[in-house]
């Protein structure tokens, strides 16, 4: 499944880039991510939990920053195993930053795959969840930069 979108923030591209490559900040914009630990400059482990109604899913995930090209591009690969159910989550997330009308546009493409039991049965439910998470992500991101903008 593929999620694509754009967020426009009122901040210079270089500073947006710096914040985006700051993993704790980035993780704070994704609902359900906790226990982020850095292994080295480009590798992290984290927990990711999401719930749909009373069904909850927990994943142990590892994140690798696969491409960092200041100030336009960041690409990360996420791999995770769900807890207690057969499956596997793999995702690549790439963001491209461009300047438009004095603002910075963050264009993102997330390509996620779910396999195993989750993939064969839970896909429709989790697809819809992904859409909801995307909205939250955009909102949080926009809010974070709005705050940053106000503070500066």
């Amino acid at each position, binding site marked *: *499944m593929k999620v694509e979108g754009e967020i426009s923030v009122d901040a210079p591209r270089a500073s947006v880039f710096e914040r985006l490559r700051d993993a704790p900040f980035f993780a704070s914009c994704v609902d359900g991510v906790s226990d982020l630990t850095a292994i080295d400059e480009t590798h992290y482990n984290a927990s990711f939990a999401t719930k749909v109604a009373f069904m909850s899913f927990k994943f142990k995930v590892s994140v690798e920053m696969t491409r960092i090209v200041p100030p336009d591009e960041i690409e990360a690969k996420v791999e995770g*195993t769900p807890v*207690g*159910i*057969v*499956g*596997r989550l793999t995702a690549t997330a790439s963001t491209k930053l461009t300047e438009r009308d004095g603002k910075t546009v963050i264009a993102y493409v997330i390509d996620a*795959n*779910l*396999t*195993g*039991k989750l*993939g*064969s*049965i839970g*896909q*429709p439910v989790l697809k819809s969840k992904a859409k909801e998470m995307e909205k939250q992500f955009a909102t949080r991101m926009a809010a974070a930069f709005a705050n940053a903008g106000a503070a500066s």
Partner: protein
Amino acid sequence: MSGTVLTGGQVGRSLPRLEARAKVTGAAEYTHTMRVPGMLYAKMARSTVPHGRIKSIDVSAAKAVPGVYGVYTGEDIKTVIPDPYYGPAFHDQPILALGKVHYIGEPVAAVLAADPHVAEHAAAQIVAEYEELPAVFDEVEAAEDKVLVHDELKPATTFADLKHLKGRKDTNCALDFRLRRGDVEKGFAQAAHIFEHTFKTQKVLHLAFEPHASIADYKDDGVTIYSSAQGPSFVRTEIARLLGWPENRVRIKVPFLGSGYGGKLYIKMEALALALSMLSRRPVKVALTMEEVFFTITKHPSTFKIKSGIDKDGRVIARKCEIWWNGGAFADIGPRVTQKSGFTASGPYDIENVSIDSYALYTNLPPAGALRGFGIPQLVWAYESHTDMIARALKRDPLDFRKQNLLREGRPHATGTILKDAAIEKVLDTIAARLDWKKPFERGTGTVKRGRGLAVALKAVISPTTSVAIVNVGGDGSCTLYCGTIDMGQGSDTAMAQMVGEVLNMPAETIRVVPRDTDVVPYDMGTLGSRSLFHMGHAVRLAAEEAKAKIAELRREVGEPDGSNAPLADLFQKKYGMQAGNIVGTGTYKPDYIPPEAGTGQTTNATPFWMTAGAGVEIEVDTETGHVRILRLINVADVGNPINPRIVETQLSGASLMQLGFTMFEKMHIDNGQVTNASFADYKIPGIHDVPAIMENEAVEAYQSNGPFGGKGVGELATFGVSPAIANAIEDAVGVRLMELPLTPEVVFRAIRAHNNMPLGDE
């Protein structure tokens, strides 16, 4: 051959199925619901990557689950079966993954427990780590050999017709079949018109309602396996090979079979059940859930590039066919699908110059095998759509164009084999007559448009194959038939009993067909490809005829005059002085066959009998939504002389409805190798409301001159014509041509919008 038709009055009866009572009372027992004392249940952990090397498999959490008897991986299997690979064409499938996984859903470990829920819960705790490898999913891409599914191919030589398969390296191509007749390039050069189209079919699956199940009870001196198998003789051979044993220590029993449609052929869960029984020293049952069936066996998706040259008079003078079969991760019987369907890829037409290339390809998807037609429905979809497109482009009536080019009795087929006993034209004419083809057709009003279409097909049967049968008449005169054909609903037990009854002049319902058990029942190649009625039918006929001759001998021996009607029991009584003794007749049948010449596919004897059938439809299309309603579905087939007309009709009707699902909506949705709709909730099959308002089934008057009592196989026939007939009718109704299955409302709607220059965007 069987020119001496006897008049026992049994052949041609619409006798209800012999096993009917067992089925309506719930007494019929299937492997999936069987239990054996002391039995453990197995549940599998499956691969979560489409292609990868196994780095580790952590079974500790699974082992710690209370109630777990044992957890096993491929390495454990090797301790009891050192070379644990199986398969009918290639020994490429490991009992549990070894070293590598080849598709998402491949079994990597198994848990045993007395409670299947415990086993299932524990299996979910197994964590395997993989080094992921690039994967290939598309058949045409796989042919480029950039990603290799297997490091090395290991051919089996179990079947005579696959003996030429050689082990290959650096390729995903398990078999390439070539047929060359005339000079196709010269034909194109002479043609007035050239047409080239590419058609695709999607991945679908059998979904027999009894999911695969096998129970193995291993003892050091022998093993008994109860299994939902369509070919117990093959299972026995393969299990014996894995064990390094003679076949007589392996016993395969098949109770009632909750159908198969090709999905339970060759070897499926039997080897895993065996290995786990060896490891645990307990009887072990492997019974899949319906979800797991989606990861076990499927139908080949295909890409078919077809090119035809037509002369100025409308004759097809050259046809080039290239077909890529997506076989998934293990070959299963894909090579045979590739070859046998390759024979007839150019269709039921008389074409001077033909070139066929048919490729069996490995990909990182769940394996594909035979599904009610051995590849023929995929081919007919392409060539009968193509034929209609040519007729329309040439402004020819599609029926007339077909009739002009039809292959007729006595003419050589593309293989070089002369067509005999194939009522192709009669089938086509019957469909046309039922559709009132030459009369004006009501085209619908407003936003609902009507259309009609037809299609006709030809198939060569799998050959050479052998069947053996035993007819046993007991001291009381009652008769028992031992034959290995699996009656999975096609009515073979009834038809075979009718043939025995015909010969021995007994009511078929008094004849017992013994349950399938390889310790008791002689060899049969398998219940597949509509071969049983012909092959086993002959074996049964021969066995009955031998018994009949021995009865006549006994009659003479005990002093009965010629033409005596003395009951059989009296003959035994006279000979043995009491109710005792047996008369046993045996029959073995193997038809003549000349293998196709390598490289050209030419042979003067490609098939013991030809199969032909077609379909006609009337449909309406809701142009506002793309919904297609089948108003009328006509199935016409040449079944030779129908042995049991009612069962024949049910077979035709059922096969066409199954194909209707494959045509209209069935599709395994796959996302980077992951099947995402592995359940009846999201993979829909035809239900009672999907039955067309009018269904007509007809077996044309025909006689298979070398068939038992003039009969031949039926099971696959009505699948052939349905898909192209519907696509042809859709073009007839709304002017759009669909070249990929399934024909869902969205596909139709998008095509209509594109046709009107208002394409619908993706979202």
